[in-house]
């Protein structure tokens, strides 16, 4: 309980400061912040709004988990944005081309996504290990290249991934019923995607892998103190490659809810959202790379998205939500760091006081 309070206090503090800052921005630009928050709340706090937030939050969660697992080793996988789009395209193409019974069909499609994401991410790891190229820069370049590769494969006469039957979407061929992830109809028009279950499984897998296995220990050790980990026999090159593969595999799943759920697109195309990887970075940092913290951050991020759509009704720019997300992230990383330093200092002081007390007791005895 005490532990929970310790980790919640800085988060609440950061949230409060971010809302204060956003209110200030709203007041300066001549809007009433209360009106804005009321409109946002109204758009979020309906049955439909909450379900939509959960569906979108699941995507954000997987996107953040992909970043967080690499950050556990202090490696920044900024290339998730390219990885998930490459993965979504290949998975959509394979998923539409094969014919298999239902659960197997989905499994094969998901495997393709995971493999494609991992393969694209492995380039970052290989270049870092063999040529010492900064992984952040490789990631950024690969994001640019991914966009070109996708555009090329979609239109090239050799591959021709584009569905000639639906030129207006500029998308791949639709995925048949047996390859779709089921959805649950709740109430009148609210639809919960089973992709949410997949996201929960990713979270459980993340937790078990990082906190309950030998590999996870090595991973965290390499992140906390690389030289100590190396002298304890952890091969940094091997760790780097495996971490990038895992991170990329996870990133491969980001778009699968969109590609495989029947109320979404059932294909990869022009309307496929493009910035989920970058959002994932912010959410991972906000959730402090912890499976549960990231889940809370993802849901909050999605709720702010959902709320922002209600701002149009009161004539306030919806961008205030982006400001909220951005300033929340910025304030949160500062508050977390200062808080942590303060806690460590307090622990040291407490230990020192205890030693001192013990010594004086000894001396008087």
């Amino acid at each position, binding site marked *: 309980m005490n532990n929970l309070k310790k980790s919640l206090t800085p988060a609440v503090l950061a949230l409060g400061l971010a809302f204060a800052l956003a209110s200030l921005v709203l007041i300066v630009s001549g809007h009433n912040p209360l009106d804005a928050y009321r409109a946002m709340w109204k758009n979020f706090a309906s049955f439909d709004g909450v379900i939509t937030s959960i569906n979108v939050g699941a995507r954000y969660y997987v996107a953040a988990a992909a970043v967080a697992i690499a950050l556990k080793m202090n490696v*920044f996988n900024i290339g998730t944005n390219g990885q998930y789009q490459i993965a979504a395209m290949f998975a959509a193409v394979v998923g539409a081309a094969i014919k298999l019974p239902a659960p197997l069909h989905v499994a094969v499609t998901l495997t393709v996504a995971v493999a494609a994401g991992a393969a694209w991410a492995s380039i970052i790891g290989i270049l870092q290990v063999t040529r010492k190229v900064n992984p952040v820069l490789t990631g950024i370049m690969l994001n640019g290249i991914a*966009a070109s590769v996708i555009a090329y494969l979609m*239109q090239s006469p050799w591959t021709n991934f584009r569905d000639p039957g639906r030129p207006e979407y500029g998308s791949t061929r639709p995925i048949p019923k047996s390859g779709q992830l089921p959805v649950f109809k709740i109430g009148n028009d609210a639809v919960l995607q089973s992709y949410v279950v997949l996201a929960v499984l990713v979270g459980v897998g993340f937790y078990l892998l990082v906190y309950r296995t030998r590999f996870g220990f090595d991973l965290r050790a390499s992140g906390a103190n690389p030289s100590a980990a190396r002298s304890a026999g952890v091969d940094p090159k091997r760790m780097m490659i495996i971490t990038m593969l895992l991170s990329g595999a996870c990133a491969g799943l980001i778009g699968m809810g969109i590609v495989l759920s029947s109320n979404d697109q059932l294909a990869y195309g022009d309307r496929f959202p493009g910035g989920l990887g970058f959002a994932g970075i912010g959410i991972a940092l906000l959730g402090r790379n912890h499976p549960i913290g990231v889940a809370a951050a993802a849901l909050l991020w999605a709720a702010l998205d959902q709320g922002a759509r209600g701002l149009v009704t009161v004539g306030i*720019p919806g961008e205030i939500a982006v400001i909220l997300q951005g300033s929340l992230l910025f304030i949160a*990383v500062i508050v977390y760091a200062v808080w942590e330093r303060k806690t460590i200092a307090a622990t040291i002081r407490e230990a020192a006081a205890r030693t001192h007390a013990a010594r004086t007791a000894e001396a008087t005895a």
Partner: protein
Amino acid sequence: MNLSHLTGRERTVVLFFLSLTAAYGVILLLAVAGLVFEAPGLTGSSTVSTALGLAVPVILAGLGGLIAERAGVFNIGLEGMMILGTWGAGYLGWHYGPWGALVGGLLGGIVGGALLALATVTFAIEQTVAGVAINIASLGICRYLASIFFDGKGSEGDLGTIADSPSVRNFETRFSVPFIGDPLLELENKQWFLLSDFAGVIRGLTVDMAWSTFLLLLFVPAVWYLVWRTPFGLRLRSSGEKPAAAESLGVNVITTRWAALLMSGGLAGLGGAWLVLDSLKYQQGMTASRGFLGLAAMIFGNWMPGLLTIGALLFSFSQSVGFQLGFESRALIGAVGFAFCLGALWSIGTKRFISGAIAIIMGFGVLLFAATNKTINDSLTKALPYLLTIIVLAVASKRQRPPAAAGIPYIKGQAG
């Protein structure tokens, strides 16, 4: 190459002739590729002058990264600072013309630099994290500001929206080195092998240049002078190499890093101002990762302004070639193939047979591709600059020496 036994002046002379030879070699390579693959435009003045302009924002971001990192802060927020610069340049440029745009870019970038300094220097938090946060936040800030200050404002037929500003005036004249333009043009049009290529390159670098390009390129020598020839520069570099030692000698590491980050942000913001003056308005997303490319150029340039500029030019040149309508793209790919083959010869000459074999296979592969594809698919042309940057980083990264304390937060009093 080890030049450490030479005196300063001798080294300058050697480096000068080395760079002349290198420039000659590159133009020769491009001329041969242009001849073999029927693309005289590869060394044409229009390709070169476009490349020079496109290099400016990347160079400025790179210089910003260099100053920050020489002072000990890894600045991955350059992209966000450049975005803030584009907004500032759009706003002040719309109201006060080209000089306003430059001031606006500078101020916008400085705001971003101050945010990063607050987070990484004052609060000493993880530098990558803070930089990424700035990149995300700046997008939202600019969109919000645009929704208030640009959306629906401006004159009839020139209204701003949430994604772009009303139009911004550029300088009315352009800069040319006097007297040499016409003779060079005549020579360029003769299509003589190598001579015309030289004429094209020189003309591209000296004639009909935007004033913003000319003015902002002056920052390359200025930053070099500041960092390597002034007392402030010495303090800056010592903060980036051994901050604890610097502090024990009386350098205020905190103030120095703050100053470095304000300059870093200002330079990135000026890069944004160049973009605004080039497109004649602010547009959302107009930076297109150039802040990150600046970082890549800085790493390629081994944290030195001159080499950084070459790295940025390499990137912008491949981008500029992509804009040409003829066979220039495949000729550039062919030139890369030739370069691989030359690298292979060098490797074999120095008895590194494995790298030599890899290089020769890649060289022939690339040449075969260039020979069999007359026109290159548009989307591959767009990927070319990124691809070349990765290749160059893969070739260059192993010999790099970053500032020793770059990326490590410093807490005052660490010297003990």
